[in-house]
């Protein structure tokens, strides 16, 4: 076959795959969400998954948040000082953290730490027939394995984001005030002047939707894994790659909607 035709075939197969996969994922999410209002309500499992997705990521968030705030302050301070606008350091650091870096970096950290583990865990349950076992007990696997993660993601991400922004702003404080000699009043005072509730809401919407995206993609990839260890390892990789890429793409679209 001519190279041109081969190229079209590859592109065509890829497009069909993407459309098919999007459809399957959409149906999966719709089925899961539809089940949420019906009992049983497995609060215990939700708490357990909040611990897994949220609590256990806290240390990573504390570290990355602090250093992100610090490096941000360092970079921005020198740029601002060229215009003599150092007093704007506080709000710029805070806004960058609240609107972009907090939600996005938190989401990437959770993807790396918990998303991969979720896909692997659910994938292993699939290939060892544990999901089938649930099914034969007339228990709905979505109730036990998917919904708790989805809810835990929706609850955890905004909280982690809050922690990230909080320590990030203090990291910026350490650099701007401690290292560069800005006054504490300038740093915090100008934050209060420039950050309003719309900015905070923007960050909240982002982290909420990232919480859904990560758990949705990771659970889907694990639930419909291929055969054997190779199938699970593929699902795990795909869960991480797809979540990360989707987070950044969705971030752009959500921003453009919210800004408009």
């Amino acid at each position, binding site marked *: 076959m001519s190279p041109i035709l081969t190229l079209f075939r590859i592109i065509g197969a890829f497009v069909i795959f993407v459309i098919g996969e999007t459809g399957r994922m959409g149906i999966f999410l719709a089925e899961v969400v539809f089940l949420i209002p019906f009992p*049983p309500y497995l609060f215990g499992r939700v708490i357990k998954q909040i611990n897994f997705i949220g609590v256990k990521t806290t240390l990573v968030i504390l570290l990355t948040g602090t250093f992100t705030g610090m490096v941000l302050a360092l970079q921005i301070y020198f740029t601002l000082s060229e215009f003599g606008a150092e007093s704007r350091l506080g709000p710029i650091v805070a806004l960058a953290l609240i609107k972009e870096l907090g939600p996005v970096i938190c989401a990437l950290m959770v993807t790396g730490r918990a998303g991969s583990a979720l896909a692997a865990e659910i994938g*292993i*349950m699939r290939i*060892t*027939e*544990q999901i*089938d*076992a649930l*099914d*034969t*007990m*007339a*228990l709905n696997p979505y109730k036990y394995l998917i919904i708790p993660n989805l809810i835990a993601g929706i609850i955890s991400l905004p909280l982690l984001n809050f922690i990230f922004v909080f320590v990030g702003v203090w990291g910026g404080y350490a650099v701007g005030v401690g290292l560069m000699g800005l006054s504490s009043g300038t740093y915090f005072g100008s934050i209060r002047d420039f950050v309003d509730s719309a900015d905070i809401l923007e960050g909240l919407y982002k982290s909420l939707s990232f919480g859904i995206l990560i758990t949705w993609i990771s659970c889907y990839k694990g639930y419909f894994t291929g055969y054997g260890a190779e199938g699970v390892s593929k699902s795990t990789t795909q869960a991480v790659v797809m979540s990360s890429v989707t987070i950044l793409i969705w971030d752009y679209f959500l921003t453009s909607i919210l800004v408009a």
Partner: protein
Amino acid sequence: MIEVINLHKSFNGQEVLRGINLKVNDGQALALIGGSGRGKSVLLKHIIGLLKPDSGKILIDNEDISKLRGRKLKRLKERFGMVFQGGALFDSLTVFENVAFPLREKTRMKASQIRKTVFEDLAEVGLSGAENKYPAEISGGMKKRVALARCLVMNPEIILFDEPTTGLDPLIGKAIHNMIRSCQKSYKFTAIMVTHEIPDIFSMVDRVAMLYNGFILAEGTPEELQNSKDPVIHQFIHGELEGPISIN
């Protein structure tokens, strides 16, 4: 009554089941025999509704399990139990929690009652003392027995056993067989048991069916199959290498 009618199933173009017809009456125990990789597990998974047929019907008391949805399907599944070939134990739960799981999720039993039931159940399969171990910490044979206990604890009406004694030592294998048989006699559940334990199995089931080339080649009482003149059945049951069945 379980009735499988003209069931077909292929995976990626490979025809595994090519028109299965099988009937199991209430309270009967049927042994399903046949070569490795011939589709015995696949057939069981159709009967319990885990796999959907390409064509054909699976009637449980005249209701087609492959067509039911929602609450009706749930109610039908609640009458079933299945012991998976690999055990399918929940690996994040201990042995005790595995057996207690269906009781906790599906009944309103008190914790103390559950505890008592589970301990009795585990003692019956010879696993006292392993309650707090995780599935990864016990042997393959022990896993099988935990799976059996987890299934029996709910007293289902129909139980599908996928090689419950393969890989067990002969004494435990016999003990498990006897236990299944005595449970089956006292609780009168309908049993379909995939097994390679020939001829041991013949003394403990009412009927035997042999799966070959995607069909049920023969179905009858153990005596009928043992005395069968069909060269394929004869070869398989007597474990002869010479004959119409080729190993490759």
